[in-house]
């Protein structure tokens, strides 16, 4: 009981950092359907971010936008914050978040290059940026202060198998640093991000109706990972752990793995394209099987 109390006290005193990675790529399905949807999502994200800040005085928030060409910080801004006076009953810190995020996103969207064809979002890149930000804050902490960090990805993009390597690096880095990755998929089930959530023990949720988005966010993603065990949250879905091959960037069930660098290929090639190892015995699979049997007999 006492240990429980001290643990909860500790949880109260540490800093909770939430980094929201928001996909603003115009080629997302819901944006093409109706550009208004992005505004709606933005409102929900801002309200969610403020709800996080509302939990505790020492909670921190960062919002990163991710598009097909660049990743930008929407909040906080590196230079001195703009002077804002309260306009209505909203708490001035929340007002600052809302104004800054909207203003930044507006200027980013205005300056974005025109899209000729649908492009992939640079999600993995944005997530690495979020990781870098977290690790910088972590390093600058005063001694004795603890910080728990997590990343929430909101995206309506398709599966980005071409970023497989970057994704995996991000996931394992996050796991090592003890950072939880949560994902809210707005369109399709994303198996790669699902893997990431599973690896870092975060939540993955597919929201099909944008109307109730805020309520979903508040329910599933607002509780800090440390207290999630006290609440009933959606059970973890079955995770598709397929890897993507390095040659065509497609998800495969069975493939060839380089014995030196563990790269995955869907077709056999005599030289590994990643580490340039030359494989000596280019034999088809059945022969390999026979050889194995022979060695078995010798033994």
């Amino acid at each position: 009981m006492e240990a429980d109390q001290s643990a909860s006290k500790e949880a109260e005193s540490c800093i909770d950092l939430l980094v929201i990675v928001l996909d603003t790529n115009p080629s997302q399905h819901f944006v093409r359907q109706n550009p208004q949807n992005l505004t709606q999502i933005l409102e929900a994200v801002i309200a969610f971010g403020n709800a996080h800040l509302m939990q505790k005085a020492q909670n921190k928030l960062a919002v990163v936008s991710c598009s097909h060409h660049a990743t930008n910080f929407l909040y906080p801004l590196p230079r001195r914050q703009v002077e804002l006076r309260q306009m209505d009953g909203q708490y001035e810190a929340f007002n600052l978040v809302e104004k800054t995020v909207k203003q930044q996103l507006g200027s980013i969207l205005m300056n974005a290059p025109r899209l000729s064809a649908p492009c992939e979002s640079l999600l993995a890149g944005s997530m690495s940026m979020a990781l870098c930000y977290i690790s910088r804050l972590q390093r600058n902490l005063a001694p004795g202060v603890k910080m728990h960090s997590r990343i929430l990805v909101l995206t309506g993009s398709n599966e980005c198998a071409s970023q497989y390597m970057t994704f995996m690096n991000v996931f394992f880095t996050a796991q090592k640093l003890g950072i939880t990755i949560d994902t809210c998929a707005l369109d399709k089930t994303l198996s790669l991000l699902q893997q990431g959530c599973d690896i870092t023990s975060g939540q993955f949720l597919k929201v099909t109706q944008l109307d109730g988005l805020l309520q979903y966010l508040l329910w599933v993603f607002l509780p800090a990972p440390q207290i999630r065990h006290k609440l009933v949250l959606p059970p973890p879905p079955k995770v598709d752990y397929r890897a993507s091959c390095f040659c065509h960037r497609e998800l495969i069930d069975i493939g060839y793995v380089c014995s030196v660098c563990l790269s995955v290929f869907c077709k056999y090639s005599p030289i590994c394209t990643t580490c340039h190892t030359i494989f000596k015995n280019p034999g088809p699979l059945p022969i390999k099987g026979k050889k194995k049997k022979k060695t078995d007999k010798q033994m």
Partner: protein
Amino acid sequence: MADTKSGSGRHSAAGGSGNTVLSPLGQGPANLECKDFQEYLRTRQTPESLEKLYNYPPICLAVFRELPEIARQFIIRILFVDQPVPQAVVTSWGAQRCAKEQAEATSCLTALNVWRVTAIPGGLSAWELSPTFKKSVRQVLLGGGKPWPMTNTLDKDSKPRDIAFLDTYAMSRWRCVLHYMVGTGNRSGTDAEAISPDAVRILLHANLMKRDERDGITITRQGFQFLLLDTRAQVWHFMLQYLDTCEERGISLPECLSMLFQLTQFSTLGRDYSSEGMNNQMLTFLQHLREFGLVFQRKRKEGRFYPTRLALNVTSKEAAATASVAMDEEATQDCGYIVVETNYRVYAYTDSPLQVAVLGLFTELLYRFPNLVVGVLTRDSVRQALRGGITAEQIVSYLEQYAHPNMRMVESAIHSKSCLPPTVVDQIKLWELERNRFTYTEGVLYNQFLSHTDFVTLRDYAQSIHMLVWQNERTRTMVVQKNGHDDVKRYWKKYSKSGV
């Protein structure tokens, strides 16, 4: 037939010692109790007055942050739901194994009148957020409604004050109050002015000081305990006492609280705020805050003021601990001057009579130099402090709080919890435990049993209902807890009747 003697039986739990003098526990003035905000609301406020408080968004936000973690999640989830939510549904949100914690959260929400029970069609009982609370929290989160007071737009201050200036200002004001308490304020020329009659009234009301026979004012035992608290706790305690007296002054409590929270939790250090549009009562309140150093205002009439660090995060200890160190621009240099060595020597680099006086409460001072005081923690000096009602916890926390930065370096090097030498901490605690060899239990003495069997039967019965405090077979004497006396007496009557 056995006589039963009723009375307060004394019992020494540890046996051993022959010392049976009652300690003055409970006779002297009560120890200083420090409430946190939640406790304050629960004990001092009725549901109606709470409802009145919830009209002020800053208070709602402060209350929300004080709630247990699970309670906060519940509130957030029903914040945007317009109908009452069935209780069963709310219960299903929490995991089974944390049912106890959940029950605590629920009762806390009810106690603070944040939500209440209503019936919904179908005969189920449901939770409904207090409409005022709901409206205020929504407003804080999403906007709308009227702006908070003191946020009017101001032109740029021609002579803006930086944070370092505010820090020194605030601390010098606050020390003024403390110096007054130990009676050094008037003599030392540094903190020139004495404090106002209003502040004195609060000190008297809070029992931190009292009038003595010669109509002078002296510090009380609680006052000494107050001095040992850290500055944050001091300010908070002081403000609570102030709030108690504010109705008498004709200042409205909700407005006061709202402004206090806005200042303490939701304002930014180093920013100027406007006092425009405040009524006279609030302006008086502001002047009081100014006097204690919670805000800085250049002139009485100026419509601009700065909150100081003293005001920030005054309500919650945890928040203050991290917030002050996590601040991006680090400026807290006010801290440590005490070095404690493993040989119980205490070196304090200070020339302030206040700090020396406080240190003198629990150390034996050996030498004084212009900038250094050397003392030693001895059993006698610590016991003297303990007798004065100061706890070991308070001594240790005082030493920790003002530990020299070099001691903190050691702390981060060895990753121990406290920056003091563990031996010293343990010894101080042991000295305190030494005094607690007795526990006092009210009881009833049974003696003069006629036979050994009578005695044994009754003793075994008392033991079986866990009411026996002490017994001696040879003298056939036993002591039973007072609340068990009726039971045992009844048993005895039944036994003696059936026996005869």
